[in-house]
């Protein structure tokens, strides 16, 4: 499916870097085991989709690639085949300047797979830790060691919920002379008292260990490329996370994956039969005018501040009254979440920790204000 060039926000500039995400839901292992669909259906669906979506954009350099296809359902030949055709349809870049990341569950990461993906051009490993109370330290040590043996530039962790034991585990890793993960990110986790407590402890612990925070759920080591990009105000934020490759357009391949394309957000069907017959991804319901106010949210999440003067000059948006309305009720007594000085709003440490709540509240007020702020009306898609 070639995105029509007349859609607002679409950028086909050949110099603009492109991101590609490959994803399939983890439950597909059970689905394939039960039949009648097999992993071959998924591979052929992916190949069909990547060829369908390449016309007109295949020449853009792919600076960001994220492989999140479940490792257990694809063998080495499948992986090689997908990457082969990806390389034929898209312009895969020089590895050193790009971020090509592959995700493994802790128990799936081994030398053979590490070697294969390294040889296919990947330079970053993401170890995903599913629901568990404590981290398996020996397994984590082994994974980091394997990644180092194969000269991966980055080893990152993704947690599905905050683990209070993570900080202790990282200290143990450090004590054993192991490299610490460059980035630790949290998925969206259910609201609960336990998760809240664990999150507070995790947040404090990670900042004590010297990690910087992007948003409030992505901890990066202070010498990492993402931390440097944050200091230099060169971060980009997409619905697939933060990057320092300048990528804002991401093609999401695979069932259930999402694409962001200028002001467009699209999602593929999650169920395999629907995915295999889909001609194009579905539009993501635009209940929120995020694409209109994306620069506001992006600046807040990336840098924990808002240049109010800039938004007034650039977009004629007077954000201060909206922010005060949105956040005034959220400041607990004696706790300051933000300060405003000389046209710039800065979040305090408490404000960064409460960023999720602040953003949700701000989005609600921005949605209500749509139409009243100049240029903020919803874009017809």
């Amino acid at each position: 499916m070639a995105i029509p060039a007349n859609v607002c926000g679409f950028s086909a500039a050949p110099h603009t870097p492109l991101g590609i995400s490959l994803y399939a839901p983890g439950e597909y292992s059970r689905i394939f085991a039960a039949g009648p669909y097999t992993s071959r259906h998924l591979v052929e669906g992916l190949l069909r989709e990547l060829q369908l979506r390449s016309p007109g954009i295949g020449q853009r350099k792919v600076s960001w690639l994220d492989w999140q296809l479940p490792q257990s359902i694809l063998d080495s030949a499948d992986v090689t085949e997908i990457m082969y055709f990806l390389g034929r349809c898209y312009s895969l870049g020089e590895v050193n300047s790009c971020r090509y990341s592959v995700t493994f569950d802790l128990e799936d990461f081994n030398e053979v797979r590490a070697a294969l993906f390294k040889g296919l051009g990947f330079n970053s490993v993401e170890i995903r830790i599913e629901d568990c109370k404590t981290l398996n330290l020996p397994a984590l040590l082994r994974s980091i060691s394997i990644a180092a043996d194969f000269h991966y530039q980055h080893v990152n962790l993704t947690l599905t919920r905050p683990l209070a034991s993570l900080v202790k585990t990282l200290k143990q890793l450090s004590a054993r002379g192991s490299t610490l993960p460059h980035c630790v990110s949290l998925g969206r986790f259910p609201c609960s008292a336990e998760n809240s407590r664990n999150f507070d402890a995790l947040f404090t612990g990670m900042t004590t260990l010297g990690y910087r925070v992007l948003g409030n759920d992505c901890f990066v080591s202070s010498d990492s490329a993402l931390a440097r990009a944050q200091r230099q105000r060169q971060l980009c934020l997409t619905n697939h996370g933060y990057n320092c490759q300048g990528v804002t357009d991401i093609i999401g391949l695979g069932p259930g994956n999402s694409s962001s394309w200028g002001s467009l957000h699209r999602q593929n069907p999650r169920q395999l039969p629907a995915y295999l017959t889909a001609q194009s991804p579905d539009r993501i319901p635009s209940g929120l005018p995020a694409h209109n106010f994306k620069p506001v949210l992006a600046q807040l999440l990336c840098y924990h501040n808002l240049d109010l003067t800039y938004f007034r000059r650039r977009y004629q948006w007077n954000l201060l009254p909206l922010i005060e309305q949105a956040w005034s009720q959220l400041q607990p007594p004696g706790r300051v979440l933000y300060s405003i000085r000389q046209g710039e709003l800065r979040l305090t440490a408490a404000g960064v920790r409460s960023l999720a709540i602040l953003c949700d509240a701000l989005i609600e007020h921005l949605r209500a204000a749509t139409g009243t702020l100049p240029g903020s009306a919803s874009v017809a898609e």
Partner: protein
Amino acid sequence: MSRKNIASSNSTSDSSGNSQAKCHHNPLVSCGDCRLNAICLPISLHVDDIDRLDEIIQRGRPLQKGEYLYHTGAPFRSVFAIRSGTIKAISITNGGQEQVTGFYLPGEILGMDGIAQNHHTNSAIALETAAVCEIPFSRLEELSLKLPGLQRHFFSLMSKEITSDQQLITLLSKNSADERVASLLLSISTRNHHRHLSATCFRLPMSRADIGNYLGLTIETVSRVLSRFQKSNLLAVDKKEITILDMDALKKVAQAESRC
């Protein structure tokens, strides 16, 4: 099984890089009759489809020792299956020195280094008289669309090549001389076993110099390691003839994980 003469077409390069006209295709040699078809590309095919693969294969005159199959930088047009003999792949370092990057035995495919950039990034040289089957890649792709098993097998071969290249890099960066030499010997042993040859008695087709170059060791170190293995009764060594006396012990030395 039909047998066809294939008119001379794309030819293999000689050591000066010039193309030569090939001999006519030997009508007695075809994929269906080849003793290596159980490990080469035909393994993935139904017996009725082997002819279709055979039609695209080009078989030229044997390469003599030291003769180039292809040079670095040559446009990528074909991959090659080795029918007999041994071929080494080399690249030239920034300092202008030759670096051995792989050894290819009968039944194995080489030339895949050219796929990514459309030109070969290595050169390939015969270590002894070698016969190869040239498979034009564009025709292989066309045929693969019609024979999914062939495509899948080819990607399987590609993935193994990619994996073993990276494992070698790791081996060279962190393993001892003993581990490296043991890994290479085990690799040759395993590959011989796949060809239904002896896994314990074989001839090393490459020189000590090439082994050292490949493993990042000096010739002297290679010789010392082999002598040490011989004294420890892991091997018997008679010039290029190797007899593995204690396979388990050799695997233990190599940590039995990597393939050179």
